[in-house]
């Protein structure tokens, strides 16, 4: 019943985007987020939309996968949209009973909703085309300069990759425990808020117990294989830039400049 979670899930396919260096994709995502917040006029948004569509097509990931990530934020979208729509002062363009919609409100609401939708689609594009391991590899490599300042970059990225690796395991475990308790007559759907919260105890306790058990097993297995942190550790597949990665960097910068210039004029 939890198999439907897609946020942060990798979709295996063979596309240009899948083969790109994770550092490029991280950088592109960062630029994309900046650009989304620079853009305020229709023309820059058209450019962003065109770029987004092009990337979606290149990724070979079914569009439905990206939309699925949106389901979780539907409420947030509605609330943000409605508040911006009705609460912004300005020239009234529309009236529904006591509620007034101003021109600025309308514009803000549209920008807000478009930004959030694009943000989710864009970032889920990155996680859909990059395996969690690549992602943390890329992050570790990109943040390496910080380790000279004493930041535990390797440790953080190791923790991240372990955390990511454990999400599907814990999801499966939750599913199993839920089923086991349902087989003992547990009911998670009926009753008020307190009854339902109480009904979660038989799931949460075994889940925590198993998470700790797994964590200590993993720590033992890592030590048994002489893991001692990042120092002197080499990679089986070190990240190297290819020609396509360089082209991608150029395109990303061109995209940033184009949107920035179009936003200014």
């Amino acid at each position, binding site marked *: 019943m939890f198999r439907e979670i897609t946020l942060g899930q990798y979709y295996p*396919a063979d596309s240009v985007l899948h083969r790109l260096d994770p550092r490029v994709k991280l950088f592109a995502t960062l630029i994309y987020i900046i650009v989304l917040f620079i853009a305020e006029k229709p023309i820059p948004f058209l450019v962003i939309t065109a770029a987004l569509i092009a990337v979606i097509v290149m990724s070979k990931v079914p569009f439905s996968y990206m939309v699925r990530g949106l389901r979780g934020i539907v409420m947030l979208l509605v609330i943000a949209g409605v508040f911006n729509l009705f609460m912004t002062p300005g020239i009234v363009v529309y009236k529904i009973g006591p509620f007034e919609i101003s021109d600025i409100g309308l514009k803000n609401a549209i920008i807000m909703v478009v930004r959030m939708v694009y943000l989710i689609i864009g970032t889920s594009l990155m996680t859909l085309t990059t395996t969690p391991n690549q992602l943390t590899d890329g992050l570790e490599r990109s943040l390496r300069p910080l380790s000279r300042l004493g930041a535990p970059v390797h440790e953080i990225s190791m923790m991240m990759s372990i955390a990511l690796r454990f999400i599907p395991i814990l999801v499966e475990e939750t599913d199993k*425990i839920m*089923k*086991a308790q349902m*087989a*003992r*007559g*547990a009911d998670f759907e009926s009753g008020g808020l307190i009854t339902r919260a109480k009904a979660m105890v038989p799931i949460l306790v075994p889940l925590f117990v198993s998470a700790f058990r797994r964590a200590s097993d993993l720590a033992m297995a890592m030590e048994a294989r002489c893991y001692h942190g990042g120092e002197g550790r080499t990679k089986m597949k070190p990240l190297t830039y290819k020609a396509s990665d360089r082209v991608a960097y150029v395109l990303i910068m061109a995209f940033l400049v184009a949107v920035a210039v179009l936003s200014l004029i």
Partner: protein
Amino acid sequence: MSIILDHVTYTYSEKTAYEIKALDDVSLSIKDGEFIGIIGHTGSGKSTLVQHLNGLLRATSGTIYYNGQDIYDKDFNLKNMRTKVGMVFQYPEHQLFETTVFEDVKYGPKNQGLSDKEATNRAYDALADVNFPDEYFDQSPFELSGGQKRRAAIAGVLAMEPEVLILDEPTAGLDPKGQRDILNLIRRMHESSGRTIILVSHSMEDVAEYVDRIIVMDEGRVFLDGAPDYVFSHTDLLEEKGLAVPQVTYLMEELRAKGIPIEGQPTTLEMAEKEILRLHKAGVF
């Protein structure tokens, strides 16, 4: 009390890149009081199959009837049925959560809507049934040994007094004595109360010794279905699917190949012993 599966198919993650057909057109009829063993290698669909029997998984297509009622019917009370078809999952000790063993065993009966007194009685009986030592009743379930945890967890399902009991690999991860104990316990429950028992296992020896009907699963389909001597007479077919017959059956087949006139298909040590003694008396040796 019968369970009938009518052309049941189940697909995991339908219409995605990860689509897997875990059950493929399975039709079965499970009668009252049967002791059934389900075997098959990993991924053959045995766990998926048993999870359909108490409605934990909903078939993608096909129907399941419990005592003649369609369990997917809107009016059918699935929650109630789940307590009648008890299910002991693999590593059931992972579901323990209460502060004491006794409280944990009471969880099922309480969910059935029984009073605290009745639930206490049920828990007491169930723990006695699994030979759980009295002195540990008030201990935290997390401090028990593996075998004791398993017993406590099985008692948690037994306390609901199910009519059908499904056990998914109940002996996995136990030492040989623990395995014997659990299997003897299951046999006793079958003999004393006559309830239907479905045992998922991949130990051919266990299955041959305890059950009276074997269902062999392969790639989501029922591959063989019948009494142990019938199923284990298909050595070639089973080996083709990566399965085996009990050691003793191999031995008897080898003796037969040496020209010793062995009758039938002995699948347990006892049966083999009887056959060898018979031949000995007849003067073959």
